[in-house]
């Protein structure tokens, strides 16, 4: 218990530092946030056009697509804002930046994940929450599970990022490929569930469990299937555990390096 509290205090101090460092360039942060909102706004008319042509995609309607989109963008934003370091793990491995984290008496993953923030995350988070709020108001979805789904989706997304980023311990210069995987992970989560059938459905529930991030929450919002939600929570916890274990396995193969550099 004492160790958990100690880690929690360190985590809060780390988050404070990360935000202090990120908000040092307030102007840049606001501009990036505004641009990221604009980028995502462009996609909304596309959904309207798609669902005007085909109002029902295997049971999914416009409101479900908007809710899934809002959820996936908000989760992407949350992870970018608070745990951007996760996305950068392949680069941290290549540059030997885990060295200073490994000499601290705290979990390496905590420092590696929460030591940096991406300023577009703020815009993505705000946009996603606004879209979710719009769905709640316009289509009468319940507000209550929204924070829970945001946390659950972010854990799935963060675990997915961690899982694929960990490959960087074996594959050098992996950041570019990893970014492609993260992007596709998020893209899949924002697409209607009925397009995932057969093998794709299995993948969407296991290796790339995007269904746990957006499809299951929407099913709950519509049908209130508690059992499905229960299985999803179990799946999320298992996936998180698998990713963390995979990272610590990879850490054994960490080779450090002598690149001149500085943290921050």
């Amino acid at each position, binding site marked *: 218990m004492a160790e958990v509290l*100690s880690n929690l*205090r*360190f985590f809060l*101090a*780390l988050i404070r*530092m990360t935000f*202090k*460092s990120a908000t*040092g360039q307030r102007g840049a942060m606001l501009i990036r946030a505004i641009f990221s909102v604009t980028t995502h706004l462009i996609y909304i008319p596309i959904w309207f056009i798609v669902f005007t042509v085909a109002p029902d995609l295997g049971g999914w309607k416009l409101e479900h697509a908007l809710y899934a989109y809002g959820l996936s963008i908000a989760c992407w934003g949350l992870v970018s804002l608070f745990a951007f370091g996760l996305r950068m793990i392949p680069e941290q491995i290549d540059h*030997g*930046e*885990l*060295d*200073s984290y*490994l*000499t*601290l*008496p*705290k*979990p390496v993953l905590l420092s590696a994940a929460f030591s940096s923030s991406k300023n577009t995350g703020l815009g993505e988070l705000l946009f996603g929450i606004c879209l979710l709020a719009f769905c709640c108001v316009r289509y009468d979805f319940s507000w209550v599970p929204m924070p829970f789904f945001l946390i659950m989706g972010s854990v799935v997304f963060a675990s997915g990022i961690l899982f694929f980023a960990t490959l960087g311990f074996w594959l050098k210069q992996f950041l570019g490929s990893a970014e492609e995987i993260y992007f596709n992970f998020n893209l899949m989560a924002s697409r209607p569930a009925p397009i995932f059938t057969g093998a794709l459905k299995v993948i969407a529930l296991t290796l790339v469990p995007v269904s746990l991030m957006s499809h299951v929450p929407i099913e709950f919002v519509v049908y209130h299937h508690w059992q499905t939600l229960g299985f999803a929570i179990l799946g999320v916890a298992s996936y998180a555990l698998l990713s963390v274990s995979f990272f610590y396995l990879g850490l*054994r193969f*960490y*080779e*450090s390096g*002598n*690149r*001149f*550099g*500085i*943290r*921050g």
Partner: protein
Amino acid sequence: MAQSVFVENLQKSFKVRKKSGFLKGLFSPEYTTVKAVDGVSFSLEEGERVAFVGPNGAGKSTTIKMLSGILHPDGGHVEIGGFVPWIDRKSMAYKIGTVFGQRSQLWYHLPAQDTFELLSYAYDMSRDDFKSRIKTLVDAFDAGHIVSKPVRQLSLGERMRCEIIASLLHRPKILFLDEPTVGLDVVSKGVIRDLVKKASDEDGTTVLLTSHDTGDMERVCDRVIVIDHGHLVADKPVRELRSGFIREKIITLAMKEEAIALDMNGVRLIEAMPHQLRVSVDTSQVSVEAVLQQAMKLSSLQDITVEDPPMEDIIKEIYAGSLL
């Protein structure tokens, strides 16, 4: 005195990809194994200051990274303050401090004092303890004016002072310093060496310092371990190495006169160019001061540089068998 660091038959290899054509490299890459550390054994008593020296690629940094829990060794046994680094990494971290000259633990855009505060949470220090400790260290390192500036605005020497404060914050029993003076000017090197020595004297901290600068070992350490190609080649008190090899100094003189002749016992000519002379001085036969006085008598000096011999030369001498 109790043992602080115990290393036995430590080994570490890296797989390096062989150069080959694009297609062969893509579909059928070949690898070769490079032994970075090959059966190194030594131990350090509590409070000892030991230099771990060798030329580039000798295995110094790899060894210190294994001792500080960063790298997993392929074989051998290590105990740091009773902990095995790769098993008890977190518990051991409370007992050790690390400084990597080539890498920073400071946050680039923030003042160093913010990093110190974050580290105080990492080491579970109480607020009162942190405040009093940071005051002591900032006073001792005369760093009051630099800890509040963003790290990006600090010179390399100032940054290194902050790095050492960060590493001493939690009162470590053992300090690992990996090339702490790399890239620093002569004055900054002197400051860093004095501060490390003072901190070790006051708190009884064991110091293991890697460097390929002979000045670091001469001015900070009592004992020196020389490593080359992953093998330990010498483990001697610094005074023995000094009497054997570091007694040599290289003096470069720039003068108005085109040429002068420094005929003195213990002075050997390395290179003579118009208006410049480079000599080696055996300090056991003649002092640097006496050589400079003689040079001033013979010429109008415009510039003087006094250097230690390169570590590569010392290693060569050790291999030649003069020291072992």
